[in-house]
């Protein structure tokens, strides 16, 4: 193992000489996430405040003035605007107004006669300002509807409770930590996999096909170090870089949480409750063999390639596979498919998802862990066997 450690040391020393790569690998994540998340949170907050402070622009068609007075009276929340030129739907999409409300012509008469009338609201729900406008309209109409019902019941001499046989009270059983845990459980495995893979990728290509391209691999092979030690040393380096990249990115994301929550401590406290040492330890334990599996794949493709371009072409599709599997495991209902515990890579994502959402299943975790360890071990054995061949090493 001494030889493998010496090779890994050489790789790290070589990396330490390249300031640009050091900056991009170790410093940038710490600056990038807080900057991006901070900026995003600030922009979202400003946008929300702007949307909430200004009145929603409503084009109202109400021939019998059934609700016009209601909206006009609430000038802080509603601004009635004239009919825009051209197509109404297009005007909504172009954000010339937030809401178009059409009340049926006989609304006032229906109201008088204790009948029902309809209101049609048209909006572009993909816009936040339209969403707020619709919510405001619902609130205004709900309040008014209650008043009208009270009036009708009063006229009939009935009690106010007649139209309200039950009251539904909803209590949220999930504490903030569980809610955050569920969100993290969906996103975290996906992020960890991508970070580990991409973190290993560039360094893996540099240390394998790059060595061939720079004609330095032969000088390593001409030393007394056994070939399998050279291969294992490179594997150790690629794996370490993947783990370091994933940990640094996660740490940086963790540090960005205060920026995201606008400085509030509640989400940070909830996060701290989820990210307890046990959960983090189990996460790390299962990510190690998965990282080893990825590193082996990168090593295998890298050493067999003639140059860095060829290695890049062979290794890059792996990202798409990782992204696909990651997205698949985020889908609702996937965690209920028991057979997925036997599908490599996917089972790690699911085990982590359950771990963070406090649905930890010991057996499923152990199956996933054992399978990933076995797979990583098999892959390491295959790598050292294949890469020991002259055909792979002298391919040029």
């Amino acid at each position, binding site marked *: 193992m001494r*030889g493998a450690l*010496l090779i890994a*040391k*050489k790789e790290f*020393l*070589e990396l330490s*000489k*390249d300031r640009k790569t050091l900056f991009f690998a170790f410093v940038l994540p710490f600056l990038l996430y807080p900057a991006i998340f901070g900026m995003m949170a600030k922009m979202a907050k400003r946008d929300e405040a702007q949307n909430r402070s200004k009145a929603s622009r409503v084009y109202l068609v109400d021939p019998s003035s059934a609700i016009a007075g209601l909206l006009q009276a609430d000038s802080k929340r509603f601004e009635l605007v004239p009919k825009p030129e051209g197509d109404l739907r297009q005007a909504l999409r172009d954000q010339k107004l937030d809401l178009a409300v059409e009340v049926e012509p006989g609304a006032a008469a229906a109201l008088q006669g204790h009948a029902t009338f309809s209101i049609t609201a048209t909006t572009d729900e993909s816009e936040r300002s339209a969403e707020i406008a619709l919510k405001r309209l619902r609130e205004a109409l709900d309040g008014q509807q209650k008043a009208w019902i009270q009036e009708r019941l009063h006229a009939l001499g009935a009690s106010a409770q007649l139209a309200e046989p039950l009251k539904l009270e909803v209590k949220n059983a999930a504490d903030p930590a569980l809610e955050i845990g569920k969100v993290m459980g969906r996103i975290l495995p996906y992020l960890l996999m991508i970070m580990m893979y991409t973190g290993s990728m560039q360094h893996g290509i540099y240390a394998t096909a790059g060595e061939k391209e*720079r*004609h*330095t691999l*032969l*000088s*390593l*092979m*001409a*030393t*007394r*170090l*056994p070939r399998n030690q050279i291969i294992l040393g490179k594997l150790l380096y690629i794996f370490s870089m993947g783990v370091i990249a994933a940990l640094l990115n996660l740490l940086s994301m963790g540090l960005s949480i205060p920026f995201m929550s606008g400085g509030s401590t509640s989400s940070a406290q909830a996060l701290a409750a989820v990210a307890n040492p046990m959960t983090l330890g189990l996460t790390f334990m299962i990510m190690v063999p998965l990282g080893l599996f990825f590193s082996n794949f990168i090593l295998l493709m890298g050493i067999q390639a003639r140059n860095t371009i060829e290695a890049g072409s062979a290794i890059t599709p792996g990202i798409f596979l990782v992204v696909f599997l990651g997205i698949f495991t985020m889908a609702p209902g996937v965690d209920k498919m028991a057979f997925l515990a036997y599908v490599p890579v996917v089972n790690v994502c699911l085990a982590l998802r359950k771990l963070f959402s406090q649905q930890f299943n010991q057996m499923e975790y152990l199956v996933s862990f054992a399978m990933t360890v076995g797979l990583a071990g098999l892959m390491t054995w295959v790598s050292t066997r294949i890469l020991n061949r*002259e055909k792979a090493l*002298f391919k040029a």
Partner: protein
Amino acid sequence: MIQLNQVHKSFTVKDRKTRAAKRIDAVRGISLEVRPGEIYGLLGPNGAGKSTTLRMIAGLMDPDSGSIHVCGHETRQKPEAVRACLGYLSTDMGVYVRFTPRELLRIFGEFQDVDPRVAERRGLHLLEKLQLADFADVKMEGFSSGQKQKVSIARALLHDPKVVIFDEPTTGLDVLTAKTVLDLLRIMREEGRTVIVSTHVMPMVEDICDRVGIIFDGKLHGDAPPLDLLRSRNAKSLDEVFFQLAAESEEIH
């Protein structure tokens, strides 16, 4: 001491047009012996099998049949022991340009299990001999090909190997640097090392080699001292011998 006994090596390549696998016999039954304190010159055109032969001697490739012994070790059975007593240099070997020569030699000293203090001392001594001591702490990114070749030579000799294999050591070097390399080869002979040099430069072979072997189509011709070879072929120079062998080879085919 190097001993090759009926060594064969072939490669399978794919014909791009017909997609059929084709066997190429790179080395065909080569036997030779190189003794300590001797410089052996291996000549031959491109693709004749020189580099493959040298790589097999260095334990980097395995022969298909036959046997190779270096420092008393069989290359297939103990490749690490072979490489421990051998210094190998090839023109297509690069250096780690992010390091300085001193750093590179320190790292390779560790790889070769040389005591760090000894590696430091010996590395600097070699750099001095190769007139590169002033650049010992300069990053190799801006080095010329000659400077890089000198660092490679120092790397190959750092662990004080008994056997030295230089595959075309003067290719791409200017006259002065090439002379430095040749002087170093002479010193190594005086120190009793076993040296094999492959080259295209005939005057260099006549000048420094004790014995010469010419490889054509994977076969070894004329394993003898340069003067004996000239006499036996009735030739004035090794170039002439080379052309004679090339003509004979074409006649056979």
